[in-house]
């Protein structure tokens, strides 16, 4: 921040022949850095980011580290309670009904879970928002038709879709992704359309039109960046929804199928052991909750941090005690 301080004091003295190359580098970096610093300022957001990174890393490298621990059964060692150091670190979180390491299964499941939830959210986000933005920008019949299509998808029983896809194709994570993405498109579509319809009447969009910019260019330059934070926030809510939907499908027997394993499936399968081995469903459940809370906290933070109008909120010094020191004692 020092740099702008110095410049500010003598604005008129700046000569007309500037040296752009010199300035740009460090300043750009400064922008990135400040987002990071902003993050560090918010303890909750920092912790959330760390958790998400941890989960991401786990999903990425965890399964390889676990080897065959997640599938190695030992029927004589089934349903062993967690936190018993005697069983060794593999069984720190206990063992499941087939004597597999809960820890290893959680790690392996994280990959399936993320590889269902992330693509499902991403695909729906991508299609839904592009479509919605397009429909909202052009208004007219494109908007009407799109909204009706959204209505159709919304009132369509997603379970039927799930069964159809599972029947016609075979049950696989990719198909679950397909179903979840398809059924969640309208959510983004509607939001994106509403925002974009509002934005397309804004003056800065008009301004872009006066330069002769093409609709798609305007959408990319002006509409999407404004709509994106809202959609991203929505996407984190949806991330949570999709994980839950996946576990509900597992519950109904039409979701991820063993021997694949996801957190949702683990909760679903563990529910019958609730009274005999609580850890089978609690640990994956906690994993879902923690992941969604972290995603939500970070999204809430990011939304503010990327909104120039709100960004200041994050950086405020805490309200200090107001001690008003009168400059001069008033005479009684």
């Amino acid at each position, binding site marked *: 921040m020092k740099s702008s301080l110095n410049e500010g004091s003598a604005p008129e003295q700046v000569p007309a022949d500037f040296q752009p190359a010199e300035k740009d580098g460090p300043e750009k970096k400064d922008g990135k850095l400040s987002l990071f610093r902003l993050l560090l300022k918010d303890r909750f957001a920092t912790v959330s980011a760390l958790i998400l990174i941890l989960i991401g890393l786990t999903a990425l490298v965890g399964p390889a580290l676990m080897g065959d621990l997640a599938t190695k059964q030992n029927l004589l060692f089934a349903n062993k309670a967690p936190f018993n150091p005697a069983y060794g670190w593999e069984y720190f979180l206990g063992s499941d009904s087939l004597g597999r390491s809960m820890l290893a299964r959680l790690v392996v499941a994280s990959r399936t879970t993320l590889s269902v939830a992330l693509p499902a959210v991403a695909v729906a986000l991508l299609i839904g928002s592009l479509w919605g933005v397009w429909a909202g920008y052009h208004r007219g019949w494109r908007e009407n038709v799109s909204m009706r299509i959204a209505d159709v998808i919304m009132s369509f029983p997603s379970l039927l879709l799930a069964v159809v896809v599972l029947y016609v194709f075979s049950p696989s994570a990719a198909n679950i992704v397909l179903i979840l993405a398809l059924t969640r498109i309208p959510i983004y579509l509607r939001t994106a359309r509403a925002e974009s319809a509002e934005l397309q009447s804004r*003056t800065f969009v008009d301004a872009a039109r006066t330069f002769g910019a093409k609709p798609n260019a305007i959408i990319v330059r002006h509409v999407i*960046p404004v709509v994106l934070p809202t959609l991203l926030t929505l996407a984190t809510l949806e991330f949570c929804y999709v994980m839950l939907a996946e576990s509900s499908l597992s519950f109904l027997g039409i979701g991820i199928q063993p021997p694949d394993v996801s957190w949702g499936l683990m909760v679903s399968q563990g529910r019958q052991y609730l009274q005999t081995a609580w850890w089978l469903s609690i640990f994956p459940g906690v994993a879902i909750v923690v992941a969604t809370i972290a995603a939500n906290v970070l999204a809430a933070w990011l939304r503010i941090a990327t909104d120039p109008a709100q960004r200041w909120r994050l950086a405020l010094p805490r309200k200090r005690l107001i001690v008003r020191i009168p400059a001069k004692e008033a005479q009684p």
Partner: protein
Amino acid sequence: MPELLTIEGLTKTFHVAKSASGNTRLKALDGISLTVGRGETLGLVGESGCGKSTLARTLMMLETPDEGTVSFEGTNPFGLRGKELLTWRRRVQMVFQDPFASLNARMNAGDIIAEPWATHRSLYPTSRERDARVRELLHMVGLRPSDARKSPQEFSGGQRQRIGIARALALNPDVIILDEPVSALDLSVQAQVLNLLNELQQELGVSYIFISHDLTVVRHVADRVAVMYLGRIIETGATEEVFDHPRHPYTAALMSASPKLDVSGTTRDRIVLKGELPSPLDPPSGCRFRTRCWKAQDICAEVAPEPQVLAAPDGTRHLAECHFPLDSIKGLTGAIASAQ
């Protein structure tokens, strides 16, 4: 002056939700005819909602007119396509009324100013050139080069408007439509911007259509003035003529309502119009001003006045749409007296 832009009978109707009388057609522009010469500044004044911005937007092809023709150096921009349209777009630019809404809050000032070049790539092909030009433009409109990195929220209204002007200038246009470019600005900045516009005109020979409700400013910048009321031009003429010898009662009222920087302490007489601007959805019959006019007679309700060419003392062309134009000899004071 050779004419650069000619507008003939421009009409624009909006379809809106029903009004009290069940009308859904809002005639925002009703047969507007104007000319703008090369290097000339045309001032456009009028009450809020009379259609000034609509005219500007129509000229910028943001709205399609229902009727009427526009001719820019003999070509009709509404017929252009592709490359030619782009060229035309480059040559005619606009500064928007609302400095808060016309800048995308998520871009920084530098990107906003450089935005037109994304479409007109050939203008400043390298990023180095663009950067330099951005700094130059910022400097031209009185901002700091470091401001290029700031987002619009960090600017005051006046500074935002300057960014808007810099953006319009980015394409080196021949005509700039300025929709209230200084009404959001501070005095000191206003002076800078007016000086800037003046210099640009002198250097580049740009024409301006200068929309403003600040008559002091219009008087200072405009060569000719057009006064609008409810979608029609009711008076045009050379600036001094219109200001000092208004012929239409509305113009007179407008002139007298404008506060003057006069510290003599004596309160001036002025015409304070009764009532509000009638709804453009249900404009009065005949002469549109008759509901607020102190000179109105029966005929005003029946017959819409035609533009009349009136004798101007200095010989310039002076047009007014009134059945009972004011006396030109007595000027504004005479008009005020007649209203009281």
